[in-house]
């Protein structure tokens, strides 16, 4: 991937929202003073939440939160991609479909109906329609990680996602294992970088950062079964989804 900005100018940046709770952009706003520092290094030209809408042809960086749930959004993400050098998927919705994707899991309790009789075809991650250069995972995103990504983009450096699994981050915090206590925690197959915030606070990992590379879903299902832990229905659906994507 070729990455360079116009010499001596700040990179033009847009922040866009598709179907989501806008929780990821709230994380960015929560950066407060750090956000002001970031704004000194970039030229923010498009951000609905901050009321910014300048005239521009091309973007250096586009941050997109939310998943694609309608034809209109599919068109929108394609348009953003056309005018952008570096496209970043922000948060679980943009990266993997997020919570909205659960409606495709055929779990009756999770059926979603949208207001206004809007036509919905499904909830898709944005990389189903366009090429994504970087993924910033989590629900919501981790704001420190967002700053790391911005720094790497400014330095024209490759952003590396955390290599750790949630499970390995959890043990570094010297926590008692939730699976050992009989809970269906997805820590072993989930990408880390969150510092195991949920298991550390005695909540199971729901996998909001998406599957780790080479995640062994089958083995985790067997482990749960062997230990008499009820297999969460979303884990089975996740497996179906992974197979259908291959």
């Amino acid at each position, binding site marked *: 991937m070729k990455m360079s900005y116009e010499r001596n100018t700040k990179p033009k940046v847009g922040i866009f929202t598709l179907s989501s709770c806008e929780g990821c952009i709230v994380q960015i706003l929560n950066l407060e003073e*750090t956000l002001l*520092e*970031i704004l000194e*290094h970039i030229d923010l030209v498009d951000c609905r939440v901050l009321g910014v809408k300048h005239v521009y042809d091309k973007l250096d960086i586009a941050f997109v939160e939310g998943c694609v749930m309608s034809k209109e959004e599919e068109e929108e993400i394609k348009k953003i991609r056309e005018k952008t050098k570096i496209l970043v998927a922000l948060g679980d919705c943009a990266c993997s479909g997020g919570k909205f994707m659960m409606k495709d899991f055929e779990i009756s309790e999770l059926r979603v109906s949208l207001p206004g009789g809007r036509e919905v075809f499904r909830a898709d991650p944005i990389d189903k329609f366009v090429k994504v250069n970087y993924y910033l995972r989590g629900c919501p995103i981790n704001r420190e990680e967002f*700053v*790391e990504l*911005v*720094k790497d983009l*400014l*330095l024209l450096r490759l952003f*590396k996602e955390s*290599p*750790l*699994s949630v*499970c*390995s981050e959890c*043990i*570094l915090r*010297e*926590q*008692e*294992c939730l*699976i050992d206590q009989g809970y269906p925690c997805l*820590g*072993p*197959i989930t990408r880390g970088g969150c510092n195991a915030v949920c298991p550390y606070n005695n909540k199971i990992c729901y996998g909001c950062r998406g599957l*780790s*590379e*080479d*995640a*062994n879903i*089958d*083995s*985790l299902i*067997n*482990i749960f079964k062997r230990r008499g832990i009820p297999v969460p229905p979303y884990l089975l659906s996740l497996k179906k989804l992974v197979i259908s994507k291959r």
Partner: protein
Amino acid sequence: MLTKFLIISKQNLIHLLEKLSKKFVIFGPKKQNGNIIIDKINDLSHLVLEYEGRSLIPPKKFFLPPTEVLFEYEIEKDNIKIWDKLVELKKQKRILIGIKPCDISSLNILDKVFIREFHDPYVTTRRQNTIIVGITCETIVDTCFCVFTDSGPLVREGFDLLLTRIDESYLVEVGSEKGGQLISKFDELFQPAPQEFIRAREEKMESLIEKISSLVLPNFSEMYDIMVKNFHHEIWKELSNQCLSCGKCNFVCPTCYCFDVYDDVDLLLKHGKRIRRWDSCHFLSFTRVASGEVFRKERETRIKQRIYHKLVYSVNDIGVISCVGCGRCINVCPAGIDIREIVRELWRGE
């Protein structure tokens, strides 16, 4: 010549630590959420010297921390200023008390890597500034197998002092000059050890050896040829179906030392930190190079890497196996992968 064996009452040991805590920072075992962890001891009443098994995370974290800033730098035009963290490390004085013989053995192995094979100033400095006071086990847990890795229940070197509880006292073995000097100023707290105390320790060790020896296992040092021969054994395929690649086994292993190094630069792009962080050979990213190529794509090759490093590559590099039989990886593996079963199956196949 210093006396090799002494005794100290439990009470006097606490007195001793109180006095030493004025000069040293004390680290030792304490309870946290049902686990034994080794941490800074601010209040000596929190110190738990007699505990079953071993701590969740091994003492390597005190010498090679999970995340460590090596140095900071500032770039001002053509001038680069560097603040090396080694300067602060050199001022540290620490006592690490209450670690088990398997963990002492693991530090001896890490020394071969970080001091002899390479000279890592950060690890070396921490080792030099830390006094090791070990303690022998009272009982074993079901994942212990130190007898088969020649790393317990007693160690011969790598400690400054080694405690063994005998009734309400501790038998103290002085393992180094540093250890002897440390206690020489506190003569009044110690007594010479009577012969029956030394015999009592021997009996304790014999009973531990007997318990662990009930496992049917070969000595792990003798597995080299068998391992080499079985590189394409079907067991590796089976294990790859079970392994979750979560990397927990690496992080709890007292001899796994792989790390990654990266820079954390501030937003003004002038000031930065060079950071070292533990890495795991179970992660795909471990062998990913700049072009994006991954050398160990298949899970099978990553599982093999860890086991073969312990029993084969380590022998090639530093002359000894690097498994100390602590059994931590067996305890934490969600999939229940057990290095003893792997070794047993390959050994029995011979």
